[in-house]
């Protein structure tokens, strides 16, 4: 990838894949207004091109950061990785369900994550810490995947509610706005919420362990009364409660309830993440920077 043939790849910038996703989104929206049989192929082509550019961009950035210090160790990188994970999920769903308008729900969130990445670009990168690397990696990766799963659950939940509303109101089917079946959306919603809960719980628990280790070893841990820690704790309790509620109370598994629970969970997660961004939490805790130690 560093050879002369791959030199064009170094010219890939954030705007390349953001532009691809944006055009794909415009084309998805145009489904509402007119029919064009080749459009889905163009949408898929643009999305896959975007994912390719996105991956190359992150890979080159990883290599660059790795040689110069801490790779993938900023909220900017973190947001871009989450957006890539969501974009890949979208591409898989769009290929499987190419008659459905799932892009209208996925692509704006992917672009929003890229926008958030731009907002937090100037924040300090996470610092290195040799003592906490394993727990930090677990903490960072679990939260990254958990957040991605929660975003997918959120999108599926929103689609479920929109679809259920349309069906309950007996709105006639629109050829340009077909959503996956309620059954599929409910399953996607439930499964994504289940995985998100597990991954976020793993991320938060590993964060607690990391903080305990740091506090006992060199007293550099974050105080337990920190707003991020408290809100994370509340999020964990909420997610566990939702999971238990869903497992024990039968109606909670059905349709709209699970969708509402997912929406609430997502809002909760978004609040916690905004606390984290504001508090620059990871730069205090050495967070994902430990990736480098693991990979080196």
């Amino acid at each position, binding site marked *: 990838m560093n050879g002369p043939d791959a030199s064009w790849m170094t010219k890939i910038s954030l705007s390349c894949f953001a532009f691809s996703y944006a055009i794909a989104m415009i084309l998805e929206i145009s489904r509402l207004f007119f029919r064009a049989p080749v459009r889905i192929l163009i949408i898929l082509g643009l999305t896959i091109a975007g994912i390719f550019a996105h991956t190359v961009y992150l890979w080159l950035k990883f290599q660059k950061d790795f040689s110069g210090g801490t790779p993938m160790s900023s909220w900017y990188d973190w947001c871009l990785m989450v957006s890539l994970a969501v974009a890949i999920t979208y591409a898989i769903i769009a290929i499987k369900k190419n008659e459905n308008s799932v892009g209208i729900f996925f692509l704006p969130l992917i672009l929003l994550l890229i926008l958030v990445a731009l907002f937090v670009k100037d924040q300090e990168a996470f610092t290195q810490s040799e003592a906490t690397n394993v727990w930090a990696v677990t903490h960072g990766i679990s939260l990254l995947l958990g957040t991605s799963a929660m975003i997918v659950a959120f999108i599926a939940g929103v689609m479920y509610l929109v679809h259920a509303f349309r069906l309950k109101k007996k709105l*006639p089917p629109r050829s340009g706005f077909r959503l996956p079946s*309620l059954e599929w959306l409910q399953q996607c919603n439930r499964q994504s919420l289940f995985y998100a809960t597990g991954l976020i719980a793993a991320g938060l628990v590993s964060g607690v362990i990391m903080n305990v280790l740091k506090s006992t070893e060199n007293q550099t841990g974050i105080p337990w009364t920190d707003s991020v820690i408290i809100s994370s704790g509340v999020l964990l309790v909420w997610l566990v409660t939702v999971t238990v509620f869903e497992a024990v109370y039968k*109606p909670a598994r059905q349709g709209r309830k699970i969708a509402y629970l997912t929406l609430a969970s997502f809002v909760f997660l978004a609040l916690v993440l905004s606390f984290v961004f504001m508090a620059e939490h990871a730069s205090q805790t050495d967070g994902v920077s430990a990736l480098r130690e693991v990979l080196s």
Partner: protein
Amino acid sequence: MKLQMIGCSHHHTDVAFREKLAFQPNQVVEALAKMRTVFPQTEAVLLSTCNRVEIYAAAENEEDCPSAQQLINFVANYHGLDVAEIATDLRSLDGEDAIHHLFTTAASLDSMVIGEAQILSQVKQAYDMANEGENTGPLTHSSFQAAMRVAKRVQTETEIHRKRVSIPSVAVADYASQFFERFDDKVILVIGAGEMGEETLQYLIDKNAQDVRIINRNHQRAIDLAQRTTGKAVEWDKLNDLLVEADLIVSATGATEPIITAESFQTISERRFQKPLFILDLAVPRDIDPKLADFLGVYLYSIDDLQQVCDRNRKAREREWPKAEQIIEEEVSRFMTDLYRRVTGPWIGRLKQQANEIKAAELERLLNKLGDLGDDPKIRKELDVTLGRVVNKLLHPPLESLREDVNPEEGPGLLDALKKLFQLKD
């Protein structure tokens, strides 16, 4: 070369009339065999569906092809009917009009439900039966194969077939599929054993529905329907238990009062734990209390809700009509041109042969007169070429006019003129 069609359809005749003329599959075979006896030189295809009865007859020689009246007599005779009783309601078309009608019918533009897919398979089946009975020939082969090609072109190039217009097909494909990803693991309850319920059930079975319970006040009718399909008949007193288990309900009974009321569903709803329930109430008057739609997780659709979609789809199909008609016009024109070329081809050959015979005779006479000079091969060849060029130059303009005449309406006129002018004989 002649193509003749007689028949009737839902456009101008009622079902009672069509029933009198209808041919069951075994009767089609029998009638075709009889036609072969009565009109031995005639190709024939018999299309009999619930909406139309049509006989297409064709022959290379016009005099071998039965007239419309002869075909009417044949049908009346076969069914033991009075000719006068049916003649006025039967439509007859020939030549290009018959081809246009055949293409329009196969493309489902003449159907009661425009764009329905069944007619194409019925046309194909009619053609296959005629083939098996050895009633077909070059004209019926080319016209029916062209009709099927045209129908497929209309299917792929327009959206006329894409929108569903029958209540059961809309209920399953446009609505049930929005709720369920798959049907093989769903409990489907069919209330009533009537035609509407059965037709909807067929669409669900096509979607791989496997756990189908059929319930009817008259249990025997439920058993009969279960035997015709893949369902399981259940006694009427188990209705409430089935309502608890069901994922999808199709109700189409002849009851005059709702069979499921909001009050009776209250206890059922508690037992369902808010599991989503999709209900298709296809009965008139309605079987299901409309208040059921207020229950959490219940999605209730009545026949009126589905009818709106059917009407909208029907209008969408009508918007596609001009595009489909344009295809038919193009294809009829192409077919008739090809057919006309096939008709004129032998006559052109015959005229050329006649001209060459005259040329050869005149050349021989001239060479004889030339004596020794005529023995010179070089001179013989030059004269042969010159006379050939004269003949070709004289024949070229009329033959070219005949070949390029793309308006088959004028074709036989030109051909007849050619036959008369050059005294061509069969």
